[in-house]
């Protein structure tokens, strides 16, 4: 990817965004001072929780397109609501915690006595002191560097990692212009964000009137399907079967709504929790297969229809 070099190669609305940003920037200096700000890892669950609790961004900086800067604050967008239980000691009901235990003598090791190692061969480690690693860590630049604009539809979800909400940081016009321009062109901005230890490929696209940054997996983190030998040898389906399959697909076509897919496990667990809180004893009942419920509905309707005849 080549970085966009200057503003005259950009679409017209963005060139205007550059002017606006510059104008606004003149009124107030950019707040991003590397080192002064708390550096936070995009993927640290603690930071995410912190931002959620305090309503504070856990990163701020700017989207940089050539000479244009659009100052933004980054908010966590995805809440992992997957239900988890705590693991307890059955005898006294106390929660268990995880410790760093030395694999040789079984002793718990404090953080201060740990060091990073790379396993060269089984059981043989190359030891790195923190100072030795400093050179390899990319510099955090408080910037989301945009290299090019791509069709949002050309991005495959297999690369999507995590999404973050970008909120304008004192330059609303530049932000709003970028939203409008991306939306009208159906494009997303592709580039990188650098955080404490890692440079992440990202895309920024418009979602529900806001800019959303999605970190992407690196190419070598995603397995390519053709490493399975069976795939290139698949037979070509028969015309008639294909026609039928397409008809079935068309019959079942509709608009996607994520609300059609509630977290049934979570709902079921909370229903159990309520019952248990109310003092009920939980007895497992053999469930009907999922389909049986629909069959029951059909049966009830058919029985009613037949009764009317």
């Amino acid at each position: 990817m080549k970085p966009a070099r200057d503003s005259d190669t950009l679409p017209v609305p963005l060139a205007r965004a550059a002017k606006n940003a510059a104008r606004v920037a003149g009124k107030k200096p950019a707040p991003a001072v590397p080192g002064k700000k708390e550096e936070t890892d995009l993927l640290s669950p603690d930071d995410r929780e912190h931002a959620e609790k305090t309503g504070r961004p856990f990163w701020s900086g700017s989207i940089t397109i050539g000479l244009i800067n659009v100052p933004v604050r980054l908010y966590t967008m995805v809440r992992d609501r997957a239900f988890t239980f705590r693991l307890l000691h059955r005898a006294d009901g106390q929660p268990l915690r995880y410790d760093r235990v030395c694999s040789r003598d079984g002793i718990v090791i404090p953080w201060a006595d740990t060091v990073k190692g790379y396993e060269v061969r089984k059981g043989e480690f190359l030891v790195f002191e923190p100072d030795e690693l400093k050179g390899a860590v990319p510099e955090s630049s408080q910037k989301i560097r945009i290299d090019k604009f791509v069709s949002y539809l050309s991005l495959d979800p297999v690369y999507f990692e995590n999404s973050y909400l970008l909120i304008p940081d004192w330059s609303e016009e530049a932000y709003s212009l970028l939203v409008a321009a991306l939306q009208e062109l159906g494009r997303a901005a592709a580039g990188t964000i650098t955080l404490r230890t890692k440079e992440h490929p990202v895309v920024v696209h418009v979602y529900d009137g806001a800019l959303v940054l999605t970190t992407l997996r690196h190419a070598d983190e995603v397995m390519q399907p053709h490493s399975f030998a069976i795939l290139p040898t698949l037979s070509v389906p028969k015309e008639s079967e294909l026609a039928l399959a397409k008809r079935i697909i068309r019959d079942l076509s509709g608009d996607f709504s994520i609300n059609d897919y509630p977290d049934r496990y979570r709902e079921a667990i909370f229903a159990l929790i309520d019952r248990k809180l109310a003092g009920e004893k939980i007895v497992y009942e053999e469930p009907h297969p999922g389909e049986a419920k629909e069959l029951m509905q059909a049966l009830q309707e058919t029985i009613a229809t037949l009764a009317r005849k």
Partner: protein
Amino acid sequence: MVSGPDSLERISIDNLTRVRLTRLDKAMYPAGLITKGDVLMYYIRVAPLLLPFLRNRPLTLHRFPDGVEGEDFFEKDAPPGTPDFVDIFTRFSDTAGRDVHFILCNNLDTLIWIANLASLEIHTTLSTAGSSESPDLLLFDLDPEPPLQFDDVIDIAQIVREHLEDAGLQPYVKTSGKKGVHIVVPLVPGYRFREAREFVHGIGREIARTTPHAVSEFPRSRDPGTIFIDYLQNVHGKTMAAPYSLRATAGASVSAPLRWEELRHGVRPEDFNIKTMLSRHEDPWRGILEARQRL
């Protein structure tokens, strides 16, 4: 509707049917991931249309325990373990040389039981139990020999329709669900199979004389590029796929009752299948058994 989805939580399927449903997620058709649960769903949904037609007709089941691509077998005799709610009609069979216990599908539970046996296809005789020698349905069975296709069958079917209407009859048509069509005239009681056969053969001969590709005689029935107007199905003990029966085709097609106007060039047997049939809002064969006719 008697009750909404909420009440479903509290009642069990055992309150609704005496059939113990098994292996609902068993794949029955290769395309479209159609399971036995889907087959049961289909037959439960079409039951209000199918049951009146099946009433008191000895059935032949065509069972596919492992789906359409697995082994299949026909079953005329009620198998061991047939539940009490299934009506049985016992009759001595000359060909089998013994009593055969025919299944009669006279209630919803029997239909569900049949579907649960993976009998994808349901075939019925052209007469009812107790009047086995006397057909109450007249059948023209039209199938194309390649390179002729369904459009060609449609042409001949419409000619058969004209001849029957000219004779003052009101014929009904359905796809066989495979390659051809079935044209049926419901009869008043008292006809013999021989009379039915001769009537169909007569019309077939007339059409064959004046229409390209149409063939009325059995020896030519498999000639390439012909359509045999089959009168030989009008025989005691022979069966046809029931209207709304699924067929064991890759596309889960259905033997679909149609309005004559629907039988136009471009329509294809596989257009009528386990998925599409449930969204049809009319029964072109409605009242067929009250519209009995004299030849």
